[in-house]
Each structure stands twice: as structure tokens, then as C-alpha cells.
């Protein structure tokens, strides 16, 4: 979801240094211990049972808010069956003399997203009521997820064949279409030119690392859960390399499509901006039609300024300086912006309904696929535990998990819901994932012992472990994660208070506001509840052992 030219370099470096070694590690741990994340870490060392719990808590938070994206994808998908597309033009105001003001100030796609889809309130404090359309879409999304996980991980595996292969088909169709769009080349050039000042910014590296973690699913416990169902002698080293290569190839493929469409949208907007400026000048000075062109615009502007200085100065605030670079630079970040950018690009294509349906269907498949991994990460420890599995059949356990998540997810369908969604999106997983992965590596390398692990792997995969993995696990990956951690914390300390972007309906664009205190408390709670699991788990085991020892000594 993060864009910007030159992102490729941090992404590829992070993949080789972090992604592949960590993926191999998690797969190996799951395959060897043959348990979900909680049980697996308990086996390595009882003091590490908190790591598994932290993974499950992070997965739980993720499943709470991630399905809202699927609800939005459903909403857009259902609205794609109309001609014209509802976000293509502004709706008329009450007396049919013009367009709705909010829509004029922003754009029709932004209006559709912020008003028609979210019905967003001006700030996080004003909660508003639950939007029934969104609530209903969310319930549908959870029903879809329940249908896929109903029978357990074995059946989920079959569904994943579908959710993983269909997006490729759609991507290929989009690639062919996107490369033929006017202005697509601009986007591709932008994507492949590295920007040195961006490389120096640690935020880009943190984003690349988070992106790798998210796309590979590291630290969530889902990989351990899936790997525990593998055969004991499955060659997980080969699989780790193949999976990460396929993942990165897909990401690059998807970003080629993304940036082609992005370039098309930026070029379209740039040409629109130029046309608007030309029209304004032509009307103001009553010049002949077609007199001003894109090439002579700047020259003519200077001439007009010289000949009619007063009138030109009056016009100056209305004439925006059009720049293709500025259009390409508008940060592609956040889920909402992705919906806006793509719906805007799609509305300008011919046969836009077809492309819209394809695109949102693909988004839905990808989203459901991610949700399946998440819920598997939550359900595997639950079904592993003897207590629950004897009393309740697995359909009921899955149903209860889906139901609880759905009820909590309804808070994201309120008018201020998107602000809470952004809180969860930014803070629920990022810091906790880094910590969990760091503890995982240190646990396997230093607590369990690298040599012991090496011997176990030799038994499983049949050949000796290459020195590359050993160096990565022992030194490179932990160092990198620790440095990312430090950057993250210093960045937070430097910026001071946390802020968010709120939609101002009267002005038609986003404004920055400070979080109120209770929102900051929720953020703190989110980060603390997953990260504190690790030390608390260790503490709990420690206390338990002390009590047992004392009990034994008193008995003896």
C-alpha cells in the first residue's frame, strides 16, 4: 500500500535481509514443533509462552479491523454494476441548479468515499451513528470469512487456491490495459527512478520492513500455524525461498500495474489542470479559442502579465501551477487513498464498469486471503487447546470468533469509524510485530541454541544449513530490527504528540488535528497489550515456578 518512487531498493534489500531468513525460521519452527504459535514457543522455552500469546493478540487486533477493508471492497463492488459509475460525476444539489458544494470543492471520487461510503464526521470526537449500509457489508464480509474457515485449515487450504490465483488473472488483464493507457509511462518512470533523499529517510526503510512483514505474514503466528500442518520432512528451506521470491515478484508485478494506473491518473489530472488554466485565461482576456496551447502557456502567461498587469494579478490566485511531479508525488498511503486513487483512475477508462468490477473483486480476493491467514492464526491455538476442543466443535469456535470480531468491527462503521480504523491500522501491528519478530529470532538463536536448531533442521530437510542463514539469523536480522526499533521510537519522540488527518466537509480537503486524550490512551493500550504479553508471560511462568518450588520445599 505504500508507494513513492525508489521504494523498490529498500523493499528488495529488506526482503533479502529480513524476509527470507525470518520466513524460513517461522516455517521451520512450526514444522518442527507441530503446534500453533503458543504451543511452539512454549516448547522452545516455557518463559517464551508470552510470544505466542502476543502473536495471537496482534492477529486478533488485525482481524478486528482488517475485515472493514473487505466490507469497503464489497460496497464498491456492488456499486460497480451501475452506468454511469456513482463516483464518476457529482450529484446535483436540491434545486438542481448546480452540484453539491462539498463535491465541487473536493472531487467526485473523494466525495463518494468520504460522504457516500463513510459518511465521515469532522473529527474523532463526534461519533455519530452506525451506518447501516457499511454494517451490512461488514456482516457479509464476516459471513464470507466464516464460510471459508468453517471446516478448518484443511478446507481453508482449498479456498486459498482460489483467493491466491484469481488475483493473478485480474492483474494480468490490468497489466495489459494499464500499459496501453495514456500517461502510464510517466508512472513507470517515476517508480523506477530512485530518489536518494528518500533513501536517507529512515521512514522509508521502516515502511519497507513493515510492508515485508505484512505481505509475508511474519510475526502473526499464521505461518507457524500453517507450517505445523506440513509433513515433518517437508523441505521448508526451499519453500521459504520460493514463497518469498514469488511474493516479491507478485509485489513488483502489482506495483507495475499500480504505477501505470497511477501515472495515467496523474497525467489526466495534469492535463485537466492545464486545460482549466487555459480556459480561465481565454475567457478572461477573450482570446481566440485554441490560441493557448500546453507549449506556449508559460510564454503567453508572461506576455499577458506584461500587457494587462492589473487583470492578470486579479486572476493569479485562481490559476494553479500545474505540475506532473506534484501529481505523482501525492502520497499514496493509507487504505482510503487507495480506494480514491483507483476509483478515480477507473472512472476515466472506457468500459469502466468492467474494470471496476474486476479490480474490486481482486481486492476482495486478496483481502479475504489475508483474513483467512489471520483467523487461522487465532483459531489454531484455540483448537489446539484441549479444554476448548473437547467442549465445543470447531464450527462453533470459529463462529464465536467471527461473531465477536464482527461486533467489535461495527464500531468502525460509525461516522467517526474511519479515524479509529486509522488508529488500529497505524499502531496495532507495527511496533508489536517488530518486537515479536526480534524476540523470536533471539529465542531461536540464543535461548534454544543455534546449533540445536541446526541439528533439528538437518533432520527435517536432509542437508546441512547454509552459512548464509546462520549469519542472517545470528547477526544481521536482529541488528536491523533493533535499529528499526530505535528509529521508530526516536521518530515518535521527536514529533511529539500524535496527529491524524480529518476530513473537513466545508473546505473539501483533509486537515491535521491532534488526537484527544482518550484516543491516545487507546493507542497506548493497543501497543501495550500485545508487547506486554511477552514480559508478562515470562513473569507468570517465573512466579509459577517459584511457587511450585516453594510448595515442594515446604512439602519436603
Amino acid at each position, binding site marked *: 500500500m505504500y508507494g513513492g518512487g525508489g521504494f523498490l531498493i529498500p523493499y528488495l534489500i529488506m526482503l533479502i535481509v529480513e524476509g527470507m531468513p525470518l520466513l524460513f525460521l517461522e516455517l521451520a519452527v512450526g514444522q518442527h514443533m507441530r503446534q500453533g504459535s503458543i504451543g511452539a514457543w512454549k516448547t522452545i522455552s516455557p518463559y517464551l509462552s508470552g510470544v505466542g500469546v502476543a502473536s495471537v493478540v496482534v492477529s486478533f487486533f488485525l482481524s478486528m479491523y482488517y475485515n472493514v477493508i473487505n466490507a469497503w471492497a464489497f460496497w464498491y463492488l*456492488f456499486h460497480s454494476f451501475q452506468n454511469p459509475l456513482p463516483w464518476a460525476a457529482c450529484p446535483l444539489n436540491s434545486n438542481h441548479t448546480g452540484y453539491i458544494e462539498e463535491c465541487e470543492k473536493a472531487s467526485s471520487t473523494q466525495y463518494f468515499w468520504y460522504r457516500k461510503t463513510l459518511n465521515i464526521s469532522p473529527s474523532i470526537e463526534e461519533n455519530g451513528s452506525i451506518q447501516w449500509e457499511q454494517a451490512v457489508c461488514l456482516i457479509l464480509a464476516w459471513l464470507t470469512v466464516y464460510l471459508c474457515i468453517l471446516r478448518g485449515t484443511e478446507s481453508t487450504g482449498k479456498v486459498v487456491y482460489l483467493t491466491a490465483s484469481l488475483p493473478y488473472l485480474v492483474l494480468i488483464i490490468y497489466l495489459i490495459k494499464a500499459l496501453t493507457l495514456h500517461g502510464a509511462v510517466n508512472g513507470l518512470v517515476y517508480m523506477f527512478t530512485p530518489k536518494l533523499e528518500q533513501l536517507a529517510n529512515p521512514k522509508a526503510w521502516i515502511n519497507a520492513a513493515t510492508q515485508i512483514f505484512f505481505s509475508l505474514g511474519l510475526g502473526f503466528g499464521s505461518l507457524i500455524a500453517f507450517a505445523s500442518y506440513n509433513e515433518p520432512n517437508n523441505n521448508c528451506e526451499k519453500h521459504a525461498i520460493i514463497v518469498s521470491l514469488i511474493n516479491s515478484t507478485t509485489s513488483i508485478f502489482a506495483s507495475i500495474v499500480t504505477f501505470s494506473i497511477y501515472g495515467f491518473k496523474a497525467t489526466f489530472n495534469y492535463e485537466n489542470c492545464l486545460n482549466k488554466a487555459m480556459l480561465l485565461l481565454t475567457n478572461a482576456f*477573450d482570446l481566440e479559442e485554441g490560441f493557448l496551447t500546453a507549449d506556449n502557456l508559460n510564454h503567453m502567461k508572461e506576455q499577458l502579465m506584461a500587457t494587462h498587469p492589473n487583470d492578470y494579478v486579479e486572476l493569479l490566485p485562481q490559476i494553479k501551477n500545474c505540475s506532473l511531479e506534484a501529481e505523482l508525488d501525492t502520497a499514496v498511503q493509507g487504505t482510503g487513498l487507495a480506494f480514491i486513487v483507483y476509483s478515480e483512475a477507473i472512472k476515466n477508462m472506457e468500459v469502466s464498469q468492467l474494470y471496476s468490477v474486476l479490480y474490486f473483486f481482486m481486492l476482495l480476493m486478496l483481502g479475504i486471503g489475508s483474513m483467512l491467514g489471520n483467523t487461522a492464526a487465532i483459531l489454531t491455538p484455540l483448537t489446539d487447546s484441549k479444554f476448548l476442543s473437547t467442549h465445543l466443535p470447531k464450527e462453533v469456535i470459529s463462529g464465536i470468533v467471527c461473531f465477536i470480531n464482527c461486533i467489535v468491527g461495527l464500531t468502525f462503521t460509525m461516522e467517526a469509524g474511519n479515524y479509529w480504523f486509522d488508529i488500529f491500522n497505524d499502531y496495532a501491528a507495527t511496533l508489536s510485530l517488530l518486537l515479536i519478530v526480534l524476540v523470536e529470532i533471539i529465542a531461536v538463536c540464543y535461548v534454544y541454541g543455534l546449533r540445536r536448531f541446526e541439528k533439528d533442521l538437518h533432520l527435517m530437510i536432509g542437508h546441512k544449513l547454509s552459512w548464509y542463514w546462520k549469519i542472517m539469523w545470528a547477526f544481521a536480522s536482529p541488528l536491523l530490527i533493533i535499529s528499526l526499533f530505535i528509529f521508530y521510537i526516536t521518530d515518535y519522540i521527536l514529533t511529539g504528540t500524535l496527529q491524524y488527518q480529518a476530513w473537513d466537509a466545508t473546505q473539501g480537503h483533509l486537515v491535521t488535528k491532534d488526537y484527544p486524550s482518550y484516543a491516545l490512551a487507546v493507542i497506548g493500550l493497543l501497543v501495550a497489550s500485545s508487547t506486554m504479553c511477552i514480559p508478562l508471560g515470562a513473569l507468570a511462568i517465573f512466579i509459577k515456578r517459584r511457587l511450585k518450588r516453594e510448595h515442594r520445599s515446604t512439602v519436603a
Partner: protein
Amino acid sequence: MQECLRAETHEQEVLGCADILHSERMRGFLLLALSLVTTAHTEFCRPDSQNAFKVRLSIKTALGDNAYAWDASEEYLFKAMVAFAMRRYSSQKTTQISNVLLCNVTDRVSFWFVVTDSSKNATTVPRGEVEAAIRMTRNRINNAFLLNDKTMQFLKISSTLPPPTESSVPIWLVVFGVVLCLIVAGILFLIVSGIQQRKKKNKEPAETKNLEEKCEVTVTIENGMPCDTLNLKTGQINGGYEADDERFTPL
């Protein structure tokens, strides 16, 4: 006039002189009348005048290669259309083409126009009436010039935009209903089949006992083993001969 004075002596030419004098006077009158009209013209049709409207046409944008040039004939057509609009609006008024005055025509193709009232001397028709008249027949005016509301702009006359077509049932609800029914049907099917499978599993241990009682009669047994196992290609190891392996000396 000087030639006329020289010819005063001849009686015949006195009458001719009077004619010339008369035509001169007529010319003077005409000149005066024309100047009055032109001053009236400039007086009424002025940019930002009270009852004047600015019109802006974008012919090249609308028609591209088929664009026509804006000349005096097109202006005449425009005057005719405005007169037509005024006549349509209030049937009592008989607006003539000469009542519509155009001025300040630019290369953009934009100009100002004003409608004078011939019944009341030296006045222009109020703004509201002209606006209402044009709005009523806007479509006809647009079509006469092969333009639309956007390419033929009457500044300060707002146009009514066409209402969007809305169906009675929102389409998205229909698609939503279909998908919802499919998914709920899938879930129910899986749950029911899961319950049925579990029931079968519970019944199986009880059923297999019954089956064994029935099958004992049909299964042929030789030497304590059912015959079907001997059909396997791998054969069966006879425990009785195992110990004899030691008889043969190893190579």
C-alpha cells in the same frame, strides 16, 4: 450649395436648387437620426450595462473540425433566436430582430447583447424577463447553433441541469442480496453436512459390529485367514517358517 446660389438668376434652376436644398436637409435629418440611433445603441448595449448579458461561445471546442466561423450571418441568427425567445415568453410582445442589439464581439467569440423595448421609447427590456425567456427556450437556442449549455454560455443565466436517472430499487442492494443468499446457503450447507458426517461417524462403530456378524457367513476362511487377504500381490509371511532362516548358512 454654392452652385445653387450661382444659378439663382435662371428661373428654371430655382426649382432644381430647392430640390437640392430639400435633399440636403433630408441628408442632415438622416445623419442626425443615425447618430441618435448609434448613440442609443452604444447607450443601451454596453458591457456591464444594467440589462445586458454576456454570451460566450466555444465553437471549436464543441465541433472541432466542423466548426463554423462566426460572422454577420451567425449574428443575425442569434438576434433572430433571441427575438423568438422573447416572443415565446410573452405572446403580447412583438419583438423585432432590430430590437436585439449586439456589441463588443471578440475573437473568443464572446459578445454582449441587450433587448430594447420598441413600445416604450429608449428603454431596454428588464433583465429578469430576458433571463426567463432565454431559460425557457434555451434548448432551441443551443440546437440552432449545434452547441450545448457548456459551449454556449449565457453568463449569469443559470441553466437547470438534467436530473440524474435513479431507479426505484438501488442496484447495489440487489447484487448484495444475491451474494448474501449465496453465502448463507453455502454456510448452511456446510454446517448441515458437517452435522451429518458427525452422525455417521457416531453410527459407524455400532454399524460395523452388525456388518461383521453378517459378513462372517460369507467370508471364506482358510487356515485361519480370510481368503481376500491372499489376493494381495505382496503375499503373507507364514510365521511358521521364520525360524528356519537360521538353517541356511550365511554366504
